[in-house]
């Protein structure tokens, strides 16, 4: 069975510090990978998605970047965090198929920027 891991679960960082959140998927090959953010009182905002190693699509211009160094590894980074980067970050994976594209989410990382 497939599993998705995210770490850390919670993170408190000062403004201007760097960020690295990691996501790994087990039990599947060549998944599509996604990073979402849920800000307080808001829906799920797609930040980045990747259909393969080294292939990153950015949905919104912002202070964040993503990388996919390995097939089942997806990393969300920032060189300098802003207060507005606070939120709940979710990684998700999916397999492309004709019948639909259910995405399966990790447990999330709660980021607080002070």
């Amino acid at each position, binding site marked *: 069975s497939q599993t998705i891991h*995210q770490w850390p679960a919670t993170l408190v960082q000062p403004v201007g510090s760097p960020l690295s959140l990691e996501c790994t998927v087990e039990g599947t090959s060549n998944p*599509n990978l*996604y990073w979402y953010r849920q800000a307080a009182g*808001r*829906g*799920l905002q*797609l930040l980045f*998605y990747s*259909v393969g190693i080294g292939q990153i699509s950015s*949905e919104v211009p912002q202070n964040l970047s993503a990388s996919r160094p390995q097939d089942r590894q997806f990393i969300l980074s920032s060189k300098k965090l802003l207060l507005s980067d606070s939120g*709940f970050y*979710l990684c*998700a994976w*999916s397999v*492309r198929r*004709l*019948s*639909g*594209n*259910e*995405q*399966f*989410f*990790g*447990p*999330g990382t*709660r980021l607080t920027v002070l």
Partner: protein
Amino acid sequence: DQQVKQNSPSLSVQEGRISILNCDYTNSMFDYFLWYKKYPAEGPTFLISISSIKDKNEDGRFTVFLNKSAKHLSLHIVPSQPGDSAVYFCAALLFGNEKLTFGTGTRLTIIP
């Protein structure tokens, strides 16, 4: 441009009654619709989906209805249980596009 909308941010329903969660969309090209359930501090979990060629899909206590002419879908939960208290997101997909478009969510509270 919010292509998928959930206009009710919250909903309270008595235990045992039917919960109806609504979702509207603007893009008539969407091929596939999904509902997710999310508990606080956890990732969303997939609940049920429906293809645009169908108007109903049922799975246990959960039924999703799709009205393409109205660009509206709804999730029915019957009977509602306390464990159903969560935030529910609807999402839509275009085949060939790897992205889901999510609504803003509805917080469902089941009253014992």
